[in-house]
């Protein structure tokens, strides 16, 4: 099947069969089957699908055609060799081979991994596949309007009155945005339908030379290409979302080398890792769908010649440019050592230096002729030329680690670990105080003398991490062991709100194997994280950093109380039966802190609770008949608080009546079930059946004074739940006509239902009343021209599909 019958018949069907979660009862080993050197599983695949075929295939190539699995093994006293090939000729084909002798090992692999986004994408843009996207000029002129040159306000998409002050240049209305897109929808210009899919091709080789049991040298080299397309947002304004089918042409070359010396007391290893990433498409240049010419109202700064609200309403340039991923490289050298003071007391350590570099040329500030002219550049002299020609980005990283483990005393074990990591960004700060937003509007950061940093300069985040983890494990003889632990994690940062964050965690754990058929693992962690040195804590400020509410605390550095617990219980009450129960929970409460100014409120993520259960049972009637089922239930709940406000001194900035909350709760069910009946029909046939299911229900509950006021104004509609339901059924039957020759038939059915307001309505005839699928039923045809957007239609869409695999099996 996918990796043809290997990754489907082997992974899908065999995987459920291996669900056995509990300890497998010890069984007497059976003599190996008749030794085979080769195995061939070849045949045909056919079937049909409906809906979002790309999501059905996702990381696989399920096109009808041949399926292949070939394996060959050669074992001698001198060497061993094995090779395998799967799904030959398809986008997920894989080839691997390994030669292994006592001293030398060679291995190689070629592996293709597709990622299928969407097969029915629509786009009005045409591309040269090198990052340049064009639209017909006449269509763009049609949207722009015939009176654009004088900007009399009559043209669709030009809601800013001629010569009017910026305040009148509001965001385009829903009607105008809809009308804009309707031109594209009704113009007779048909969008091009194309597939969006990317593929990684990995070619790798490994060589290992073991000169003696004490010394080995290993070399790994690989080259990975990533080619194809991906959906890519390329918007001209906050109210004009555009999406392109972006071509990708990337490659990463890697070399790893290490040499290792080992004896019965210690080990020393030297490592090198080099990774060189090259992106052959680093510049995206694309036509503005609502402008054929750069907007120019003939006024002088700050009212023109650009539209000061162009970043919002789309009255910007005809042509935009964005920087895609820059080529970069990483080099790392490290050394690892291990020493046994005694057979039961060990220390190991590692020291690694890593160097990351990126120095690609920078694009110009903008291509917009309404900005690149003397009048505007006199007002914004920083835009005359770039502060530097290339990015000159560099990060050096230092990491060291020490582990100590001692089990000298039978009743107590001591383990300690310290880890230090320094992420040091050495990139020179880039002066972006004057910049161009959305290629449409030149803007300038005004330095605030009250703040200790300069807005507009690039920020680089320096992080020093210190991790200490110490544990004592106390043996309880036949009743297992209890572990008591302490962990400290300290972050010293530059560039974040809190310069220092310190977390202390106490830990209690219990591990046991009881009565030889019960296994219990449990732990309870309690942590307190506190930040220190808030960067504006000594200043009476109105705004927090980056224009945030001063009472906002980013949840990844905010004060936090955390409780985590875990239980893993498994048992074999009978030889044939295994049962298990697993439970994990994490409860995070994010707190305000003393640096929040008096009278201000704490915003951001306030809490999150994660609970997950899994229970299962496996039953083995005998060595040939097994079945089992596993059920998982997850619940994720988070509460966040925000304030819908305009910047100070607007009174809404401090108005609690603008506060709102969101409780986001997601519940997930997972079922995995299997039945294996092997050795049927006089030991000639095997039957395997599998079933997998996952569904989720994601709820969004808003509340707070802002919600009440919106509701009173008739401007609030609760979002419907986002619901997913995925199911897969597999069956595989093999019948061996002789010891060498067999026949196989497999069937695989998969169904995915989704209701998601995120994905656009699919009905092109429902233009005026249409909306997201959360409100209106989907018909399956992608819609690309919803409010303010010109999209590809990529989203979360349902599918169903089935495949039949008929093949011949041959062992030789």
């Amino acid at each position, binding site marked *: 099947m996918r990796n043809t019958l290997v*990754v489907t018949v082997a992974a899908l069907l065999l995987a459920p069969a291996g669900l056995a979660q509990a300890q*497998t009862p010890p069984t*007497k080993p*059976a003599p*190996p089957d008749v030794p085979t050197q080769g195995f061939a599983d070849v045949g045909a695949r056919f079937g049909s699908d409906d809906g979002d075929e790309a999501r059905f295939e996702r990381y696989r190539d399920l096109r009808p055609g041949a399926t292949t699995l070939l394996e060959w093994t050669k074992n001698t006293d001198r*060497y*061993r060799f094995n090779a395998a090939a799967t799904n030959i000729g398809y986008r997920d084909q894989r080839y691997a081979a390994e030669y292994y002798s*006592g001293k030398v090992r060679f291995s190689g692999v070629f592996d293709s991994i597709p990622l299928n986004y969407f097969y029915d994408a629509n786009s009005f843009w045409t591309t040269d596949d090198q990052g340049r996207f064009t639209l017909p000029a006449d269509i763009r002129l049609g949207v722009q309007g015939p009176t654009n040159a004088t900007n009399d306000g009559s043209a669709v998409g030009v809601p800013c009155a001629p010569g009017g002050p910026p305040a009148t240049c509001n965001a385009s209305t829903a009607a105008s945005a809809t009308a804009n897109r309707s031109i594209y929808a009704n113009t007779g210009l048909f969008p091009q339908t194309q597939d969006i899919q990317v593929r990684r091709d990995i070619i790798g080789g490994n060589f290992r030379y*073991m000169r003696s049991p004490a*010394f080995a*040298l290993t070399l790994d080299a690989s080259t990975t290409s990533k080619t194809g397309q991906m959906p890519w*947002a390329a918007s001209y*304004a906050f109210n004009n979302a555009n*999406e392109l089918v972006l071509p990708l042409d*990337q490659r*990463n070359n890697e070399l790893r080398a*290490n*040499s290792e010396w*080992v004896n019965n007391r210690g080990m*020393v290893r*030297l490592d090198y890792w*080099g990774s060189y*990433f090259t992106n052959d498409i680093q510049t995206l240049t694309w036509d503005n769908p609502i402008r054929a010419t750069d907007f120019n109202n003939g006024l002088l700064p700050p009212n023109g010649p650009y539209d000061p609200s162009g970043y919002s309403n789309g009255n910007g340039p005809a042509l935009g440019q964005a920087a895609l991923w820059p080529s*970069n*490289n*990483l*080099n790392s*050298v490290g050394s*690892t050592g291990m020493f*046994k003071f005694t*057979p039961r007391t*060990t220390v*190991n350590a590692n020291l690694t230096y890593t160097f990351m570099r*990126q120095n690609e040329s920078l694009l110009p500030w903008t291509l917009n002729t309404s900005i690149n002219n003397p009048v505007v550049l006199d007002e914004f002299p920083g835009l005359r030329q770039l502060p530097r020609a290339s990015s000159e*980005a560099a990060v050096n*990283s230092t990491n060291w680690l020490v582990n100590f*483990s001692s089990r000298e005393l039978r009743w107590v074990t001591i383990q300690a670990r310290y880890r230090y990591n320094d992420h040091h960004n050495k990139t020179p700060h880039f002066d972006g105080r004057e*910049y161009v937003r*959305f290629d449409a509007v030149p803007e300038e950061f005004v330095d605030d003398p009250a703040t200790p940093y300069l807005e507009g300069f*690039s920020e680089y985040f320096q992080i020093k991490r210190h991790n200490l983890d110490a544990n004592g*494990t106390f043996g309880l003889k036949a009743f297992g062991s209890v572990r008591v632990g302490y962990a400290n994690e300290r972050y010293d940062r530059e560039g974040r709100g809190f310069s220092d964050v310190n977390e202390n965690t106490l830990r209690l754990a219990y591990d046991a194997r009881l009565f030889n058929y019960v296994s219990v693992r449990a732990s309870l962690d309690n942590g307190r994280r506190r930040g220190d040195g808030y960067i504006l804590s000594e200043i009476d400020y109105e705004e927090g950093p980056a*224009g*945030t509410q001063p009472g906002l605390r*980013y949840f990844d550095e905010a004060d936090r109380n955390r409780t985590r617990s875990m239980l*893993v219980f498994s048992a074999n009450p009978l030889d044939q039966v295994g049962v298990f129960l*697993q439970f994990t929970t994490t409860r995070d409460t994010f707190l305000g802190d003393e640096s929040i100014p008096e009278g201000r409120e704490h915003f951001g*993520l306030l809490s999150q609770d994660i609970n*997950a259960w899994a229970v299962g049972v496996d039953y083995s009637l005998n060595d040939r008949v097994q079945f089992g089922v596993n059920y998982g239930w997850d619940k994720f709940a*988070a509460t966040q608080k925000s304030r819908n406000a305009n*910047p*100070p001194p607007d009174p809404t900035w401090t108005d609690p009546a603008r506060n709102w909350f969101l409780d*986001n709760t997601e519940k997930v069910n997972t079922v995995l079930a299997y039945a294996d009946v092997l050795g049927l029909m006089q030991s000639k046939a095997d039957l395997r059946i599998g079933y997998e299911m*996952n569904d989720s229900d994601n709820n969004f509950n808003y509340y707070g004074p802002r919600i009440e006021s*919106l509701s009173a104004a008739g401007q609030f509609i609760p*979002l419907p739940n*986002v619901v*997913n339901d995925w199911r897969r059924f597999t069956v595989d039957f093999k019948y061996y006509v002789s010891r060498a020759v067999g026949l196989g038939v497999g069937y695989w059915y998969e169904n995915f239902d989704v209701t998601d307001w*995120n994905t*656009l309505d699919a009905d092109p005839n429902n233009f005026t009343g249409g909306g997201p699928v959360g409100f209106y039923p989907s018909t399956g045809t992608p819609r690309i021209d919803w*409010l303010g957007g010109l999209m590809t239609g990529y989203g979360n869409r349902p599918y169903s599909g089935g495949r039949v695999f008929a093949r011949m099996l041959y062992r030789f």
Partner: protein
Amino acid sequence: MKRFGNWAVFLATVMAVASVGISALADPAPGAAPAAAGGAALSAPASAQGSGTPAAPAAGHAAQSGYLGSEACVVCHENYDKTIEATKHGFKGNALAPASKQGCESCHGPGEAHSQDPANVKPIQLDKVAADVANGQCQQCHNRGEHALWDGSQHENRNVKCIDCHSVHSAEGPTLMRAKTQQLTCSRCHQTITNKQQRFSHMPVREGKMTCASCHNVHGSVNVKLLRVGTTVDQSCTSCHTDKRGPFLWEHAPVVDSCTTCHDSHGSNNDRMLQAKLPFLCQRCHVTSRHPPTVYEGFTLQNSGNANKMYGKACANCHQQVHGSNHPNGKFFLR
């Protein structure tokens, strides 16, 4: 190869020279065998094994005192030797393999005493002795490469035994794993994590293109969370997602801290394996003025140009370069 810089050539040369030098100094005396790293009991009574009493290390060949050779073992334990023949443990060409040393007794200790009194003197039974004793037997050879940092690692801390996941005699999966796949092996304790693979937004694990070990080295690592590559979460993720590695001209703080601030790499029912749905994930931090803290709900979605903050890529419809930008105007990740 031309894309590899001088760094690679220089360091590879240094590595090779250093390796040869070290090896010349390091070769053990001919015939020497590694001692039992764990110092496991070799012929002690079962009760003593249970308490993990240390004993003399194994050394020498079958002809040495106390060793009988595998041929003697299989007289009673029939077929056990056959079960390792096709595995690397059974390959005599490898000087580290049990087959090229004392066979069964390489791992189970000398069997002479056991053969004389089978009822009261047991060989080392790895499922019955303490974790460090059992693991010590494996570490006689598996004390390098993948396993070099086992001591002090998270799993070692919890007294996990090698044989909890691996079975030398009755493996079902690759690398002598007990279960048929690596994911099933890990799910024995981490089912609540592996269940996430069934969510619609996931890494290609269930498709067989990745395994848990693609990212994790469960035997110990220099990174956090037993991550296999690099020294931070970011370095681990960007070892494949190299386009996101940067460093960039403009950085986004949580990206530099950890990819997991926004993504759940084990699987999610949100696009791009995000921890929560957009725009709400972004709104957990972005409580500023104007559009970031707007209440994005059904009315907006149906009636406003602001709907484009909710559909498609939501916030990333404009802030596409959220992982970092290399454009001069990239401060807000718009270009």
